[in-house]
């Protein structure tokens, strides 16, 4: 075990997997000599060479398109998109090809690629650098979408994503990259995709979140807990395919739920979670399911971001509303 932040944990996962499997390649803008703009791929080019760690021209569509071709011919590419806001340039390749080639070829071909991208706000960045548009991807059949919340989670989930036989969009919460350090296994290990994690158990309210929302949820939960509201917290981890069974089981127990995301409220993933709770646990509900989300506006630049970003206080208030309904 070693103390790692999320950047180091992801680097450790890439390194371990590349040691294990020579078919894994890393490609993207500045991922080689520079080690990535967040230093996630630092040292990989020295260890594995420029054939397997590829500094590409500046073309998101081509980074994903070339990854697809590599995967069709036996490689397992891990592509990096520098920021989620630039991933839209590659949406065509992701939606029209990566997600569909297994189906298009009736299972003869498949596209085991991982497209990593930092996502989310809270880092005082330029426009396009704070996006959290995971619902664009969770709407697409054939994709898996993963969003880790801690360093250890990031390593285990990335390792599983690399080994997965389907294309995975791997969303790294930029805000959490260096937020905290924790003990992480230095050797390889996996955390299965498609299963959520119950961070803490409670009886009164279920709170569901992922990625950078988890530390905020924990802060809100501690406050509610201090006031006698027992909160169960679920870290969704894999956004698609979603572990709705765990959410439903928890809501059946608590009867109340709050969903938290930093994406805009309308058609955000929270709406889907609420719908699934309604389908499977309506008669257990004691209160309307609360959504703490960003408003339906463009992500503001840093000076206005506090109007946008969910805060522990907003989450706390939602928990109280659900508990007191």
């Amino acid at each position: 075990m070693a103390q790692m932040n999320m950047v180091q944990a992801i680097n450790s996962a890439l390194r371990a997997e590349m040691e294990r499997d020579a078919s894994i390649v890393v490609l993207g803008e500045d991922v080689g000599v520079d080690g990535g703009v967040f230093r996630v791929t630092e040292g990989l080019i020295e260890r594995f060479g420029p054939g397997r760690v590829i500094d590409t021209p500046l073309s998101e569509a081509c980074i994903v398109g070339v990854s697809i071709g590599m995967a069709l011919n036996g490689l397992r590419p891990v592509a990096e998109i520098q920021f989620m806001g630039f991933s839209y340039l590659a949406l065509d390749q992701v939606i029209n090809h990566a997600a569909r080639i297994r189906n298009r070829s009736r299972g003869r071909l498949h596209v085991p690629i991982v497209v990593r991208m930092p996502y989310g706000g809270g880092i005082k960045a330029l426009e396009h650098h704070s996006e959290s548009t995971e619902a664009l991807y969770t709407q697409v059949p054939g994709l898996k979408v993963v969003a880790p919340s801690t360093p250890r989670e990031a390593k285990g989930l990335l390792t599983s994503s690399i080994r997965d036989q389907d294309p995975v969009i791997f969303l790294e919460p930029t805000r959490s990259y260096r937020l905290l350090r924790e003990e992480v296994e230095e050797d390889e290990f996996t955390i299965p995709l498609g299963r959520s994690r119950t961070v803490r158990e409670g009886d009164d309210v279920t709170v569901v979140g992922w990625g950078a929302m988890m530390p905020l949820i924990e802060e809100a939960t501690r406050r509610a807990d201090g006031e006698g509201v027992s909160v169960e917290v679920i870290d969704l981890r894999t956004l698609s395919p979603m572990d709705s069974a765990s959410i439903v089981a928890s809501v059946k127990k608590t009867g109340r739920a709050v969903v938290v995301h930093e994406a805009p409220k309308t058609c955000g993933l929270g709406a889907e979670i609420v719908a699934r709770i309604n389908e499977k646990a309506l008669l257990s509900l004691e209160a309307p399911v609360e959504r703490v989300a960003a408003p339906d506006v463009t992500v503001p630049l840093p000076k206005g971001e506090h109007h946008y970003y969910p805060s522990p206080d907003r989450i706390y208030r939602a928990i109280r509303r659900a508990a007191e309904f």
Partner: protein
Amino acid sequence: MVLARTADTKAVTLQRQGRMGAYPPSRGQEASQLGPALALTDGDWVIPGFRELTALIWRGAPLWRLFLFWSGNEEGSLYPDGVNVTPSVIPVGDQIPHAVGVSYASKLRGEDAVALVYIGDGGTSQGGFHEGLNMAGVLKTPTIVVCQNNQYAISVPRSQQTASRTIAQKAVAYGFPGILVDGNDVLALYVAAKAAVERARRGEGPTLIESYTYRLGDHTTSDDASRYRGEEELRKWEAKDPLKRFRLYLEAKGLWDQGQEDEAWKEAEKTVEEEVERALSHPAPSAEDVFRFTYETMPPELAEQLETLKRESGEGGGD
């Protein structure tokens, strides 16, 4: 080429009869498709767009599956193992980066396989073309890009697609050779492609081949080309029909006669009838088939949706 022409004509007829879906005719582009493919060996890859019938047949995609595909069944793209051909790509230009990736993988492993990718003149306006060629040049991948310049992207003529004098010259900007070839001369294309393949195998990188040809048919069976091009132009290109040209060449060399010609067409008719019969009698996909290739393992939510669908349709799926 005779087989492809026969199959192509049949496909248009079947669509007109309502027995097959929309289909993009290859008529007139047989040499353009076949010539480059002749330069490949078994381990090489073909990455098609959607108007490459002749190349797909030559590379071992079963004809009945191609009919099945155009009749609206994904199983038509289930080519046999060992056939290094990817399924047809409909969004124009997207397949070029795939070819760069496929050929990069071969190069990284030290194999000598190349990837040959087809695109049309319309596709050269897409990002996939420019970004793909740029990356192929930078990574020096063994990629051969064949642009079938058939003069039209549906209705838009080549002159409105690009202000470049040729498509071939675009390669210069990406740092590798581009060559303009008579696209109705199957041997010229073979020679050009062979040089490009050898160059790629020597590790010298990609080549762009502009195959200057003409689409004698409509863009697809949903199109009416008489809306945007004249009869006179069509007649001019019909006179350059690649099948006719190759036949005249062979006859002049004493390698082919009328008897062989008649026999070839008769045999092609028979083959096509059999393949069409097989395709049209193939069962429609079951509900399971529609669901089960979305992921390697069906997620619980999807399994539940499938069960609900089957229950509500009162059967085990299919139609």
